[in-house]
């Protein structure tokens, strides 16, 4: 192992090609991962913000918020189920938002909610709303009044809220009455009744049996009661974009393993003489393989560091419309994936190393 590290230190040029290739691949993995996180978080903030135990859809909604419909009566019936602490109504409308002084109409997700819960405070008064911080980048300031939809329903922005977007559209959070007013003025084809919401947000009591309570909710409503993860993946497009980018990231990880395998296979061919001498003088196969794996992992770790720095710099350079979110989880995943790929790639040379005859050091046994 010491031998392997000494070679890395004294002959860095020898590993420059693989190092550069791995840095670029790590950069690609991190960039794709950050886009995946950005797309996912930008699409699901309006779900995560509630931090509810179950997201309850009506019978014929097929897990779509826009198709779902629950009533106040339904909410109160849910609260009578054993294990349910409370049930809150929630609905969302996708409409343009005209910011004062801006020529472009911004995309908005107008979220109406019944009561405080999760990261949401008590609903604002009628005609007022809490805007997602993303609106600030679009020129919105606190105290300004935006006009929502073609019907230009006014909403005064009285506060900011973070990470609340839905389908990459900035959240604008209002109370139920304001939301219904906005929806009904702009979408006369989809009128929401005065006691209606789209889905119910259910919080369990501390002592609740989650499975039994969920079953009771679904029995009462006839629809699905999803946990947060399933509710996020029920948003149209989210599973597809997540799966697509995940597949590309795994494919890149596979390429990392291939690059490492090819490089160390060639290096092993070049080192046959050296390995034979080391075996002849007492080095075990395990020692030689461990040295090779040490080199592969060290190069991979250094590449992750450089790739991470480049990814950070790239994140500063890309326009804000590109939904990039760097997360610790994504970085740790990339680190682990690259290290595993490096180990697997390095192990490809295992058989070749084991088959090197120590006798070939003196030209016998070939």
């Amino acid at each position, binding site marked *: 192992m*010491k*031998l392997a590290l*000494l*070679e890395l230190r*004294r*002959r860095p040029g020898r590993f420059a090609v693989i190092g550069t290739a791995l840095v670029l691949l790590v950069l690609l993995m991190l960039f794709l991962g950050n886009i995946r996180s950005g797309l996912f978080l930008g699409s699901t903030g309006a779900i995560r913000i509630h931090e509810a135990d179950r997201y309850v859809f009506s019978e014929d909604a097929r897990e779509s918020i826009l198709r779902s419909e629950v009533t106040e009566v339904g909410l109160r019936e849910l609260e009578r189920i054993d294990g349910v602490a409370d049930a809150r109504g929630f609905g969302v409308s996708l409409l343009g938002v005209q910011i004062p002084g801006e020529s472009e109409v911004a995309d908005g997700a107008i979220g109406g909610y019944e009561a405080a819960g999760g990261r949401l405070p008590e609903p604002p008064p009628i005609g007022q709303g809490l805007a997602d911080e993303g609106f600030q980048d679009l020129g919105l300031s606190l105290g300004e009044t935006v006009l929502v939809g073609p019907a230009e329903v006014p909403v005064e922005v009285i506060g900011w809220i973070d990470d609340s977007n839905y389908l990459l559209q900035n959240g604008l959070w209002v109370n139920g009455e304001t939301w219904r007013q906005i929806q009904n003025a702009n979408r006369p084809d989809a009128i929401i009744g005065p006691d209606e919401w789209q889905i119910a947000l259910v919080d369990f009591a501390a002592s609740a049996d989650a499975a039994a309570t969920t079953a009771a909710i679904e029995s009462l409503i006839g629809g699905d009661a999803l946990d947060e993860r399933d509710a996020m993946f029920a948003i149209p497009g989210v599973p597809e974009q997540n799966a697509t980018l995940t597949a590309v990231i795994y494919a890149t990880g596979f390429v990392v393993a291939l690059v490492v395998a090819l490089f160390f296979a060639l290096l092993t061919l070049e080192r046959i*003489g*050296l390995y034979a*001498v*080391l*075996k*002849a*003088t*007492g*080095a*075990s196969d395990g*020692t030689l393989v461990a040295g090779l794996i040490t080199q592969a992992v060290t190069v991979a770790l250094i590449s992750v560091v450089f790739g991470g720095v480049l990814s950070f710099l790239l994140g500063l350079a890309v326009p804000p419309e590109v939904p990039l979110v760097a997360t610790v989880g994504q970085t740790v995943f990339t680190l682990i994936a690259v290290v595993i790929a490096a180990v697997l790639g390095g192990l490809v040379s295992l058989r070749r190393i084991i088959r090197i*005859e*120590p*006798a070939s*050091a*003196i*030209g*016998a*046994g070939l």
Partner: protein
Amino acid sequence: MPSSPTHVSPTPAVQLESVRKVYQSGDDEVVALGHASLTVASDEIVALVGPSGSGKTTLLSIAGGLLRASDGTVLVGGEDITTYDQKQLTKFRGNNVGFVFQAVNLVPFLTATENLTVVAEMNGRGGSAAKQRAHALLEQLGLGHRKRNLPDQLSGGERQRVAIGRALMNEPGLVLFDEPTSALDSKLGVQVMELIRSEIKGRQTAAIIVTHDTRMTEFADRTVEIADGELLPT
């Protein structure tokens, strides 16, 4: 050169008894070594000479535990290594045999000292004691001023001396030399052979030296000839 009377120790360094090595080539058997028997005393230097393909490298490899014999018995320092598996042979070589290869084959990115200590480290004997021994060996080999040099900063003769130091690093009972002077001019070849003799004799160690160059045999206590895989009577 000296042809000193051989001091025969109770336990020979090498005892080959009717050793054969056969390679399979398709359906045919190629006999690389046929029923060779050879005993090398514990402080004896034996020169093994013969033409290319005569089996001298095969014999050297079997004596050093690099190859396993197809038949016969191989005892090195009284230890029967005939039935050792690869793992046992690796450990055995690391502890009991030193090698000097024809192509020298030093690790190119290690200094002269490190080329010696790496052998000790691979056999679980690293640390400051190994470093001290490496320094002492290099001093004895006239390379005290070259300890920190990499192989490509050394002359051919200096590299060969480092290789000799590496072979002696683990205090082996047997040192095997494969054409140690073939890459050197005749003057340097003689100097290296003198050094080999002095180092081997000074340590009461046994050595087998494979060489094409019959002029080098005068540095050995005894010369053994091999042809077509058979040791010739001397």
